[in-house]
């Protein structure tokens, strides 16, 4: 059951309740809320199993966005806030989740969530968001063993890709496909710095390079940057890519080439699968259950 809001943005606000699930007073109901810079996500778990989730846009007011995401997630479940045993907040706006019992970093939650979505075989997670890149390594239980977060430099981030989409006047959602539309893969641009790569690209266009070829050269440089970040924390298959740029096939396929490893496929959330966007909130909800049990000596 999918209820969606207007689709004026690149992704839809929506809510889902898993079929064939129910709850009673005896169950442990926990919630994870992930307040990101763009989207706020809330996941409801019953005894550590996903029951429902809601995804909304983060407005200018983070506390409201967190509450709204939870309202969405609770819709149609019959659950009230008072039925929830423990709430963990995460994400960049985690301090603004006023109803949370604890706030955790998104790194720990993301790995835990990926472990639930893709299974215990996932050991490396590359998360590429609008303004940062995270490389996370974890064990079979989703426990983080090594991580880094790069949010100092725009190279490779969604924002960096937008700069190129603007420069080449191509819709952002098309740049991945277009970058693969070349006869032969050109060498990567020499500068990963987005500001300098932009100057370099203008020069290449003047030389007569097609937009596709320029895009390929830039995307390749960004993919090399990402794969170097992964190598730093250590690559161990299986490997998944999450975040907005996971939809950019030009990036994902080049990261695969640079690493020599294929990444696991995305679950098809439109047809009953779990949406990778909820990974952080899901991990937070799983930690909420563990922390609740610990506090009760269970």
């Amino acid at each position, binding site marked *: 059951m999918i209820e969606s809001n207007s689709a004026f943005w690149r992704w839809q606000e929506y809510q889902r309740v898993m079929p064939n699930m129910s709850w009673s007073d005896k169950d442990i109901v926990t919630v994870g809320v992930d307040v990101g810079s763009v989207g706020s996500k809330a996941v409801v778990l019953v005894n550590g199993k996903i029951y429902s989730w809601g995804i909304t846009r983060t407005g200018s007011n983070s506390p409201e966005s967190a509450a709204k995401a939870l309202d969405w997630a609770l819709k149609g479940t019959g659950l009230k806030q008072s039925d929830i045993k423990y709430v963990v907040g995460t994400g960049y706006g985690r301090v603004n989740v006023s109803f949370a019992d604890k706030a955790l970093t998104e790194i720990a939650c993301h790995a835990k969530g990926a472990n639930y979505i893709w299974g215990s075989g996932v050991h490396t997670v590359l998360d590429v968001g609008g303004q940062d890149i995270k490389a996370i390594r974890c064990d079979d239980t989703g426990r*983080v*063993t090594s*991580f880094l977060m790069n949010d*100092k*430099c725009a190279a490779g981030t969604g924002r960096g890709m937008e700069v190129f989409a603007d420069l080449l006047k191509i819709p952002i959602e098309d740049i991945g496909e277009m970058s693969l539309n070349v006869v032969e893969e050109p060498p990567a641009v020499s500068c990963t710095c987005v500001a300098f790569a932009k100057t370099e690209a203008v020069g290449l266009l003047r030389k007569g390079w097609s937009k596709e070829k320029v895009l390929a050269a830039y995307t390749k440089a960004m993919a090399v940057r990402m794969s170097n970040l992964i190598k*730093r924390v250590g690559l161990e298959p299986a490997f998944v890519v999450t975040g907005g740029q996971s939809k950019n096939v030009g990036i994902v396929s080049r990261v695969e080439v640079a690493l020599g490893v294929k990444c696991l496929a995305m679950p098809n959330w439109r047809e009953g699968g779990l949406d990778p966007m909820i990974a952080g909130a899901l991990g937070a909800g799983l930690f909420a259950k*563990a922390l609740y049990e610990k506090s009760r000596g269970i």
Partner: protein
Amino acid sequence: MISFYGYTDGSGSYFIVVDSDKCDGCGRCVVQCVNGVLQVAPVFIDLEDKSVVVVRDDCCNKIGYLCAQCRPEENQAPCFLSCSVGAIKCVFDAC
């Protein structure tokens, strides 16, 4: 857990790397740090909040500048030298 605090940009890579399994939170490196980059803070590991050294949030993106004076690329940084359990190191490669 091995945490890489810092960044890679066009000019190079600059990371302070903390192994929270080795770190006992003694804080000697914090005292030695001339720029106030480090602090001992709770980090969530195995459902516990363990007190270990971390790089302050507002310093992560400035490691390359804040730490340059300590010559971390030559393993001369006081934080690295002060740690008796080998829990902190600097990984700096300017290109």
